[in-house]
């Protein structure tokens, strides 16, 4: 277990965006958070990352309490996120974007900037090299010197993941990574997520793309109106009556959920 979320609550005015939510995230596994719009998924993410303070509850990363720490300290502790609407450093090159991601993995402030000692130069050379490797991993290796603002939407998403990985997170949080991607881009993303977990990084993701979630997730947590209504493997979640009701509504039932699946064996 890498992350424990313990009866976490956060309200906005009178609305309980997340309400007593508890679950664990296993090391090296992919955990998906799903739920209808307004279920509290992004709020949960923001609380875990320190962008919002929780009103109640606890977040523990490998046993140490990280509840309510500022975002940069949570990142330093090992949780790095991507954003629902991609947030790149648009004026910087792809390589520079990923090198910013390597901020935590390197050292050096004002004095090393001015004096450029040997260890600093060596570390920066290494960083540039690993940045290029990270870019190649997400298929952007040939664009290292292009400006981030020139990328297509799918490329921007992949760059954001490469940048997050450069921070060498223990837990990677992906907020709707497949939003706005084409079917083929979604498949590429799937491959990237798999290789991330194979490298030992745990992943927590939110997505509306059910086929992606069902394919990639080891565990699914379902939220509805801020409450956890189900938790388990894709198979369990798919057959849970409460989930079908909440997520798909009464009329369509399971047909839509099954219809979107690309694996006919499960039908």
């Amino acid at each position: 277990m890498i992350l424990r979320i313990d009866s976490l609550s956060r309200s906005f005015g009178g609305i309980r965006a997340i309400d007593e939510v508890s679950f664990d995230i296993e090391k090296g596994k992919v955990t998906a958070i799903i739920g209808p719009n307004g279920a509290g998924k992004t709020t949960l993410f923001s609380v875990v990352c320190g962008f919002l303070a929780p009103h109640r509850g606890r977040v523990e990363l490998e046993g140490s309490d990280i509840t309510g720490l500022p975002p940069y300290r949570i990142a330093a502790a090992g949780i790095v996120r991507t954003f629902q609407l991609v947030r790149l450093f648009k004026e910087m090159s792809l390589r520079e974007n990923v090198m910013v991601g390597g901020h935590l993995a390197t050292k050096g402030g004002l004095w090393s900037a001015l004096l450029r000692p040997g260890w600093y130069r060596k570390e920066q050379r290494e960083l540039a090299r690993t940045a290029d490797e990270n870019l190649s991993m997400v298929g952007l290796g040939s664009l290292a010197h292009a400006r981030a603002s020139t990328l297509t939407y799918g490329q921007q998403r992949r760059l954001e993941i490469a940048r997050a990985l450069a921070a060498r997170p223990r837990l990677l949080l992906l907020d709707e990574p497949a939003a706005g991607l084409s079917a083929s881009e979604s498949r590429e993303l799937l491959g990237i997520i798999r290789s991330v977990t194979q490298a030992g990084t745990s992943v927590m993701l939110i997505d509306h793309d059910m086929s992606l979630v069902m394919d990639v997730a080891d565990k699914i947590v379902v939220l509805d109106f801020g409450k956890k209504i189900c938790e388990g493997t894709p198979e369990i979640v798919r057959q849970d009556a409460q989930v079908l009701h909440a997520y798909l509504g009464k009329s369509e039932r399971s047909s839509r959920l099954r219809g979107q699946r690309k694996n006919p064996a499960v039908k």
Partner: protein
Amino acid sequence: MRNVLSPRPAAIAACSLVAAGLGILASDYWVSILVLVGIYAIVATGLNLFMGYTGQTSFGHNAFAAIGGYTTAIMTTAYGWPPVPVAILGAAIAALIAALIGYSVLYLKVRGHYLGMATLGLGLIVVELAIEMERITNGTAGISGVPPIGIGDFEIASSRGMYWLLLVLVPFAIWCAHRIATSRLGRALKAISGDEQAAEALGINASAHILVAFVVSAVFAAAGGSLLVHQLAFVSPEVFGMFFLTLLFTVLYVGGVGTTFGPLIGALVIVLVPEALRGFADFRELIYGIFLIVVVVFVPGGLSSASSWGPALGWFKAYRRSAHSTAANRPSPRQEH
């Protein structure tokens, strides 16, 4: 942003030759003008770290220049301290005040226009203190008889001497800023400028980084303030008032905010253009104002930013195309279709 002038050895050698030639050949009057160019370039280079690379707003850097300038004036005249240690003291005081003010403002996440207002307040307070603390600042009358800068018996008594000193100090200031901008620290600053939340999500403590940029830029401003007071041999609240502040902004924005050589190019243009317009007497201010508007409209990123020449070039090309087609009495390609 890419610079038109990338620091190539040949370009640097050519610029050094021109600068040295001017130091030998230019009249005393023009040398004293060029000294002002150099001093503004140093202050604007510092401000560029904060406003250009880090993308923050400060309307109060005249405060730090005033702190440097007044420290120099007071300590060298009333206490007879030597100029160089006094300049360092002035920079240290400016850094300390920048750190205190910056800490209290930046850690409260004051940003954007609000940061602009807060720093504007700082500038107004410092200038007001310079007026009111008459016993040590001599109020609005100011302090005259500031000795020239120098070490021991070696004094730089003329503008020409100051010019040679600045020929070392201005490149040094630009070199320092360039090194910061291209380092891990500079990358973090640019990231904060691009998207502060995204930078924080990658482990960058934005407030602390902005504070570092604020303090460093305050040191540049204080150094420039000390030099200016030595050059004028005089200081008054007006020296670092609103005129100084607006000049600083025009230098920064005309030259190119967030570029290596923008502040220097801006200082050259902003100081030299009004001088060149002296012959136009009453129309001078008008022509200067039009010039500023033209630059901002047609070269929005500043004169030294390659990408911002786009609108001007596009306009120029469109003009040439239409001129060409009219001259040849041919319909333009668009009309053919």
